[in-house]
């Protein structure tokens, strides 16, 4: 580095990246590239009050041969709280790194309510070891004193700082074109000469190129929620704050060369060497007198005995089945103990057991962890790995040291409790969640930029809506897939302006959040590894490093994922067991036989709506073709339904072989036990490993390395593996050509291969849901409906499914419904009141509380008995519209709802009056509290003339409140009329030579492009007897698109009046 040093040398020591959030648009990779171009061998990143980017910066710059100087820009509050000034802290060494980590963490954890976290100068004493400070230029307390011409004060302050940072305090000088800059520099240089203090030049960098200034202004405005032409907007930045070259800086400070030289002196003084990629496992508390490994091995053996008992009965020892289990356990324990991961397993075991003990459902496994028998014995997973050929080496490879990673699924509602328990157990200082960074994504950045530029909202809305909604969507991709976007932007100057700016800001970090399920547990204090951050409410402690960086920094991450299906299973099982008759054994979902034929019959019919992993449209098609008849088939389904296998023809091959249309052949006879379950098709990664083991004498650990290499397709590694494989095969006497062709085959399929451990664990959840749907359809569907209560689209599909399952749905009824969907004694699903839009837990809670005194008898009775704090007019209206109050009056639905609607204001008023009377103690002549207005409002139907609602109106408002039509179908009214126009209802539709006329309500539209690029629409008609999908080709589609889309948006009514 030193021989190429420029003269005078200079390094930027004050620079905000995009991670400063408030300002800065420098991104790390381009920064490093530019530094190399500019031959600037060192740089400091000093984001505002955070160290979010530290690991990325540290590793990225070291890899590029640039010296990283780590630091922070902090706000310092004067001790009387009257002034906020700036200070730059730079890390000299490891001690300084820990000081800074601690200091920055405490900005958040000790005083979370500050909107701009700052530190008091007096609090810095003793907490800044190993740090260098730059004064903060004219925004420092010294700068303010100098500009106020208070030289003595400035001198005093300088002395204080120098005492805090002995030999490590620099007066910072900047020339970025701000007011009073030169006055400050003159005074600061004079002060430096007088006190013999060092000065240093910085450029307070916010962006890389000068041209980026405008984009930076927009970024700042987005953050401050201002527009560019806001006259009150502070102008805190200049176009000079870019990454200036050494020459530019040299010229700028040619009068003060020491200021440049000192920047290099500081670089030389900052030598931080972080220990990275060395995981520090947390400790698990073991009983006294035992070491961790011993304890771990004992627990695992005890666990396995339990498992064997439940698999093979109490007399398993007599059955000659246990040997392979013990051999496997011994092998795994050896590997785990030797790798030092016993503590990790124990920690996972503990929180899973705690969850199960505390009624928080846990999934049977996820990811490669299900391949471990130790995990099975410790009840971390619930699947016998031997039975399904799940391999331990796929999870932990003794020949390739990497951290184990158990992803654990929890019921979404219980997950936070598990995290709280872990924090409790290992100490709040040692446990935290992980930060995520929100970036300006395509759809949002367009809106943000347009707002800041003062463009019309409609324009922003249109542009944003033209960008397809898809995770990972970028502006570039949007232009490729949505031609309308390009057309529109070309035709509109404002749109062009927005897009140009949006391109510059897309992907910039905009805010921080919390990773949904990641938790880190530190062996010591967290701040020994990572700085911490928390939001203004003091809640949600997170690491300042993101999920990758936090692992690089040495912490071990545990993934606590939320899986709604677990909540559904739990809820259904509880309902079933609560309803079980005396003497009936309760359902234990973990002990289901996996061979229930009725379950497979249900699957074979493709009736898989609401069944985990098997409910998508494409999956249903696949299921009908594959016809699953065993648990292995379900495992295969999960693995087959991915783009690779579907597109490569693997799926077709698998299905043809299963049904005997193609002969099942094995590449080599010895592979039959390995590939038998998949009819000779190489479907799983585990099979690739086993082939190498069986044919070429690979150890499973070596085979795992081969599998990984095949996935990555590195030609050099592959060539090496190929010769290894061939040598091994030859040693086993296998023909060289055959070995080569098998290797080719493996290579081809390894790319599509799926982790069987994961597939099997998820297939188990699929089977459990399918079993519930088969044997307890009402409870299962009620649980699913409850879980999806807030998702109207889902509710529609699910209610449809209930209807096709011949389940009776009891419509919303204020006297019968609970908050959730429930099942009554007649096995009917009772609509959950919580699913009515506008009724949250509060209102429903009040209704249920009032109902405990007895059923409601009429509208006034409801209004008088429920807590009006919670149940207001809107709530009552929603109840009327949903039909939940139909039984409160006589008459058909249209009349009843019209009447209730008309009576509602009176009833509410009367109830209010009554409660006012009660409050003020007005009594009627009989000494009772006067039920004012009762006689008017109650059953006053006879006094009021209302016209019944039109059927279409009833259905429309019903759909508005429930998301679906429950009391009828909009087509009912027209069926008679339609019989003159159409020949058949949709359910009776038959193929015919010529065209036929069909009719129905437009249920949904989806569009696709065909091979020649025309858009084809697939429309689904619904006439309440059935649904029928038909296509409309480009020409017709264009002609009718507008009309059809409009109709669908309006709820699909065939007619106009109430749309």
């Amino acid at each position: 580095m030193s021989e190429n040093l420029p003269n005078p040398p200079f390094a930027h020591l004050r620079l905000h990246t995009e991670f400063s959030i408030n300002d800065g648009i420098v991104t790390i990779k381009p920064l490093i590239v530019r530094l190399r171009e500019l031959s600037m061998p060192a740089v400091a990143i000093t984001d505002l009050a955070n160290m979010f980017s530290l690991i990325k910066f540290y590793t990225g710059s070291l890899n590029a041969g640039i010296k990283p100087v780590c630091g922070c820009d902090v706000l310092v509050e004067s001790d009387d709280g009257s002034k906020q000034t700036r200070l730059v802290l730079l890390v000299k060494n490891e001690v300084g790194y820990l000081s800074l980590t601690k200091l920055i963490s405490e900005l958040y954890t000790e005083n979370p309510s500050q909107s701009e976290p700052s530190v008091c100068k007096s609090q810095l004493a003793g907490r800044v070891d190993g740090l260098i400070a730059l004064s903060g230029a004219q925004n420092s307390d010294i700068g303010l004193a100098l500009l106020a011409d208070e030289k003595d004060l400035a001198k005093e302050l300088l002395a204080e700082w120098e005492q805090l940072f002995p030999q490590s305090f620099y007066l910072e000088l900047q020339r970025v074109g701000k007011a009073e800059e030169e006055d400050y520099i003159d005074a600061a240089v004079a002060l430096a000469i007088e006190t013999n203090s060092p000065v240093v030049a910085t450029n307070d960098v916010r962006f890389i190129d000068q041209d980026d200034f405008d984009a930076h202004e927009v970024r700042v405005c987005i953050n401050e929620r201002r527009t560019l032409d806001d006259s009150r907007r502070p102008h805190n930045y200049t176009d000079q704050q870019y990454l200036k070259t050494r020459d530019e800086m040299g010229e700028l400070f040619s009068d003060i060369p020491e200021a440049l030289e000192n920047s290099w002196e500081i670089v030389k003084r900052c030598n931080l060497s972080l220990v990275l990629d060395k995981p520090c496992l947390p400790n698990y508390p073991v009983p006294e007198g035992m070491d961790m490994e011993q304890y771990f091995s004992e627990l695992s053996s005890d666990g396995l005995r339990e498992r064997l008992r439940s698999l093979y009965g109490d007399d398993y020892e007599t059955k000659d089945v246990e040997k392979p289990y013990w051999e496997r356990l011994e092998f795994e324990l050896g590997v785990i103990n030797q790798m030092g991961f016993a503590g990790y397993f124990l920690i996972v075991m503990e929180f899973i057991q705690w969850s199960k003990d505390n009624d928080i459902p846990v999934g049977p496994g996820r990811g490669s962890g299900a391949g471990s028998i130790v995990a099975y014995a410790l009840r971390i997973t619930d699947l016998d790995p031997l039975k399904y050929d799940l391999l331990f080496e796929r999870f932990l490879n003794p020949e390739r040291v990497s951290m184990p990673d158990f992803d654990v699924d929890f019921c979404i509602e219980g997950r936070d409790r598990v995290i709280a328990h872990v924090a409790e157990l290992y100490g709040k200082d040692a446990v935290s969640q992980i930060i995520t960074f929100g970036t300006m994504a395509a759809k949002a950045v367009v809106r943000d930029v347009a707002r800041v530029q003062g463009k019309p909202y409609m324009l922003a809305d249109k542009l944003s809506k033209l960008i397809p909604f898809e995770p990972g969507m970028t502006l570039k991709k949007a232009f490729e897939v949505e031609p309308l976007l390009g057309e529109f932007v070309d035709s509109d100057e404002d749109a062009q302006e927005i897009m140009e700016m949006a391109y510059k800001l897309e992907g910039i970090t905009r805010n921080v959040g919390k990773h949904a399920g990641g938790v880190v547990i530190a062996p010591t204090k967290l701040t020994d590894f990572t700085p911490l951050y928390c939001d203004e409410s003091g809640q949600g402690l997170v690491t300042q490093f993101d999920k990758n960086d936090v692992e690089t920094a040495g912490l071990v991450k545990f993934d606590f994922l939320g899986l709604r299906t677990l909540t559904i299973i739990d809820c259904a099982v509880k309902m079933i067991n609560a309803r079980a008759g005396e003497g009936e054994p309760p359902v234990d979902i973990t002990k289901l036989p996996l061979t229930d034929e009725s379950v497979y019959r249900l699957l074979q019919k493709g009736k898989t709506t609401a069944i985990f992993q098997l409910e998508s449209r494409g999956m249903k098609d696949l299921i009908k073709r594959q016809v699953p008849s065993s648990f292995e088939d379900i495992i295969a389904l999960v693995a087959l339904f991915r783009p690779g296998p579907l597109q490569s023809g693997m799926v077709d091959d698998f299905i043809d072989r299963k049904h005997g249309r193609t002969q099942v052949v094995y590449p080599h006879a010895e592979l039959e036990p390995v590939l038998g379950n998949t009819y000779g098709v190489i479907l799983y990664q585990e099979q690739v490993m086993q082939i190498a083991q069986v044919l070429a004498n690979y150890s499973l650990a070596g085979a795992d390395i081969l599998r990984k290499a095949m996935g990555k397709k590195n030609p050099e590694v592959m060539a090496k593996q190929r010769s290894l494989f061939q040598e091994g095969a030859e040693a086993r006497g296998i023909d060289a050509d055959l070995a080569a062709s098998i290797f080719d085959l493996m290579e081809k399929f390894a790319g599509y291969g799926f982790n069987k451990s994961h597939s099997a664990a998820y297939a188990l959840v699929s089977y459990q849901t399918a079993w519930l749907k088969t044997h307890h359809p009402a409870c299962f569907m009620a649980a699913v409906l409850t879980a999806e209560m807030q998702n109207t689209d889902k509710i529609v599909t699910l209610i449809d499914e209930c209807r096709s399952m011949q389940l009776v749905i009891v419509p919303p009824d204020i006297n019968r419904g609970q908050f959730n969907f429930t099942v009554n004694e007649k096995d009917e699903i009772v609509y959950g009141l919580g699913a009515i839009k506008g009724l949250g837990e509060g209102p429903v809670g009040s209704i249920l509380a009032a109902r405990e005194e007895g059923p409601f008898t009429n509208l006034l009775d409801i209004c008088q008995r429920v807590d009006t704090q919670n149940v207001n007019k809107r709530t009552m209206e929603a109840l009327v519209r949903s039909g939940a109050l139909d039984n409160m009056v006589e008459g058909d639905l249209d009349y009843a709802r019209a009447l209730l609607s008309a009576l509602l204001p009176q009833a509410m008023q009367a109830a209010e009056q009554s409660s006012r009377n009660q409050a003020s103690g007005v009594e009627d002549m009989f000494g009772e509290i006067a039920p004012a207005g009762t006689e008017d409002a109650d059953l006053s139907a006879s006094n009021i003339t209302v016209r019944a609602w039109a059927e279409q109106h009833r259905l429309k408002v019903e759909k508005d409140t429930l998301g679906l039509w429950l009391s009828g179908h909009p087509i009912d009214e027209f069926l008679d009329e339609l019989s003159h126009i159409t020949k058949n209802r949709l359910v009776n539709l038959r193929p015919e030579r010529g065209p036929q006329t069909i009719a129905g309500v437009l249920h949904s539209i989806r569009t696709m492009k065909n091979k020649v690029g025309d858009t084809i629409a697939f429309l689904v008609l619904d006439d309440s007897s059935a649904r029928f999908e038909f296509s409309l080709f480009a020409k017709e589609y264009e002609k009718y698109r507008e009309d059809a889309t409009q109709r669908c948006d309006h709820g699909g009514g065939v007619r106009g009046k109430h749309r």
Partner: protein
Amino acid sequence: MVVECAVSIDDYNGGMRGRGKSVMTLSQARKRNAHRVALNLESESLGSNFCEHLARILEPYRKPAEVLEVEGAATANGLGGSSAAGISTRHQHPGQFPPSVHTVWGAADEGEGCQVMVRYQRADSIGCIMLGQEWIVSPADDLIQRLRLEYGKDKVVLSYK
């Protein structure tokens, strides 16, 4: 939605597959194919100003004068004898249609419109009254809904060719 559709077997999954040729709304289908709107009314449910009321409802949907030109005006063709037969003479406003009328009759595929028939029933007699040619109306959605709201949903029946 009314769809002209070719329906065939889907070889891929054994189900049926449809290819739409044309799509129209029920209203459009009615305009093409319906020829009569029948109102089934009972004397006790009618107000005293039934005729004026019905005329007001029908008015915006009447066929404009220029359409009627060649057809000439005819008086109601009463079969049972009723005061309702007087409608046509009392409410003639040829050429004075509100703007909405022209939108109702604006499209090319309006068809010929529907004759309105009142099937009237009272304790002692039943009769059908066919309203005159000048009361031919477009069977627009709004009209049918309005009539159903007014006289009951099962009292308004459309007949098709």
